[in-house]
């Protein structure tokens, strides 16, 4: 078995081949140019796709890197959304300031869950249930806070969509598209940066074997908490985007369990713990869903639930047949990532 050369290893985190970089460049260019040719429907689909990919990337930090299963990530989306929205609706403060409050609130919630969960040694499935419980508690709670609109929803004043106001996040679909595109790319960069530093390696060690990690001097509690905080804050930014893009927030929707599960779909399909996995997963799942909807429309059938049914089926299929996701084996097969006899997850993009 041939081993990787030491040069290859030293570039851990940049496991793309030359061809891989070219493909990435083309893909990026295409994404940048899309608004020039696409209609607003297509743009909105892409925006939603990228939004889920971004959230998946944020979730991936906690699960894929640090191994902590959260099925209540909608909590952070909602907290980010409501924080920024409330500041805007009640005090006229714009999203670029509101996002900081959103991240803070989400991080505090994550800290609460993390501290409670980790101090009390709540692990695995139980930890997942804990995250669900917190999200549900918040969902019901927010339905009763009238200052935030209660169950009836919080509405942001919608202005015209012709002029672009980046400062106030009001504008054309194309503007929103570029914002989420930049966010997604920023998330990719952040994750790649984290993975290449000590925190990234420590997370993976914790994910693999917590006790063994401790024996090597890793303060497991601190690093797990860091993963939760970073993941929560990142997710909250996605929530702020959501608030200003859709302009209405309903607790039932935004804090829902099904939203939490939608967030992880992309990541599972693409590959938990990989760098490009969540984004790739988004580009698989959303077109699939759109294709299905379109075909059903053509056939004149309107069945609510068909798309989600297929999504569920894909989830089941992936978990059974490709638990590491589609992206790793596909990328290797297509020669996009560095081929090695035994691929290393940490350097796998």
């Amino acid at each position, binding site marked *: 078995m041939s081993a990787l050369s030491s040069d290859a290893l030293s570039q851990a985190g940049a496991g793309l081949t030359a061809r891989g970089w070219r493909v990435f460049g083309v893909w990026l260019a295409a994404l940048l140019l899309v608004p020039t040719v696409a209609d607003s429907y297509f743009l909105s689909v892409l925006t939603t796709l990228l939004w889920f990919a971004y959230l998946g990337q944020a979730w991936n930090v906690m699960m894929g890197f640090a191994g902590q299963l959260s099925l209540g990530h909608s909590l952070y989306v909602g907290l980010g959304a409501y924080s920024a929205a409330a500041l805007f609706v009640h005090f006229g403060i714009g999203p670029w300031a509101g996002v900081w409050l959103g991240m803070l609130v989400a991080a505090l919630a994550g800290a609460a869950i993390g501290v409670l969960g980790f101090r*009390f040694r709540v692990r695995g*499935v139980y930890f997942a249930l*804990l995250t*669900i419980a917190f999200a549900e508690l918040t969902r019901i709670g927010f339905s009763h806070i009238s200052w935030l609109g209660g169950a009836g929803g919080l509405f942001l004043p919608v202005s015209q969509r012709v002029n672009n106001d980046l400062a106030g996040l009001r504008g054309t679909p194309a503007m929103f598209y570029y914002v989420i595109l930049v966010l997604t790319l920023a998330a990719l960069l952040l994750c790649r940066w984290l993975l290449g530093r000590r925190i990234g390696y420590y997370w993976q060690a914790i994910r693999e074997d917590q006790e063994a990690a401790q024996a090597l001097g890793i303060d497991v509690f601190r690093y797990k908490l860091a993963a939760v905080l970073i993941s929560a804050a990142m997710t909250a930014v996605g929530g702020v985007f959501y608030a200003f893009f859709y302009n209405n927030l309903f607790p039932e929707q935004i804090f829902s369990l*099904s939203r939490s599960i939608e967030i992880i779909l992309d990541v599972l399909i693409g590959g938990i713990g990989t760098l490009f996995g969540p984004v790739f997963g988004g580009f698989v799942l959303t077109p699939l869903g759109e294709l299905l909807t379109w075909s059903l429309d053509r056939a004149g059938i309107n069945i*609510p639930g068909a798309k989600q049914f297929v999504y569920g089926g894909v989830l089941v299929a992936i978990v059974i047949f490709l638990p590491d996701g589609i992206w790793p084996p596909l990328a290797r097969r297509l020669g996009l990532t560095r081929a090695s006899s035994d691929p290393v997850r940490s350097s796998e993009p």
Partner: protein
Amino acid sequence: MSFSVPPSVIATGVLTGLVYGLGALGLSVIFGVVRVVNFAHGEIMVLGMYGAALLAQHAGLDPLAAAPLVAAVLFAGGWALQRGLINKLIGRPEHMQFILLAGVAMMLVNLMLMLFGPEAQAVQVAYAFDSFELGPLVLDKVRVYAALAAVLVAGGLSLFFSRTRLGKTIRACADNQLGARVVGLDVPRLYALTFGIGSATAGIAGCLLTLMVDVRPLLAPELTLLGFIIVIVGGLGSLTGALLGGLLIGVSEAFAGFLLLPSMKSMFSYGLLILILLLRPQGLLGKSS
């Protein structure tokens, strides 16, 4: 706000809680033996509900009479699910099984949405508006019958696990999987049987639930979460714990619904879940691992 809760409210909470408890029993049995947390629990219960509803519509069957039929079908379904899908994941990290079942749940709930639509359906029985009066208590007949049936089924299950050979074999398997294999027990078969029993139990609970609640697909995730809360509070793997947990949740939701806003009653349950997860994860009656 008056703090005197009418005894009828408490009694109704007890009766409802017993039915919830039966459902949670199915969940608990599956976890205790197969060590899988069944994320599709609520979906199976709602399948049972739709089974009862269909049989009531097309065959005029009372849900109590429909229960055995629904149980048989769901037993087969649960058996197939375990054998066909979940079995493939033995040995993988447990959160993968959890996620698998979340996917199955997604498929089931949307299948029901596709077949039956999102609106609620009620199953009307002849005695739907009758009630028993015991002194100060006014109890709906439907709830009393449902609760009685739940206790009967729970009792039957308890006897099965403690008296029959098959039941004891399954319990042996739960206590010590490796030992069971060493002794020659066909563990996958036992797992499939257990999943079948658990699903059937959840299905029966669903039938009983139609007597009290209208059926709609999106009830499923709520029932799943409720099942988790009951089972964790009462103790995973403990049969009496599941019933006790059901009672506890049933009564507390009745209280909360009466004293606070009805829409807030679940908050108390989730708060309780968080407390138990932190302080006593084995539940009130569960064994400490």
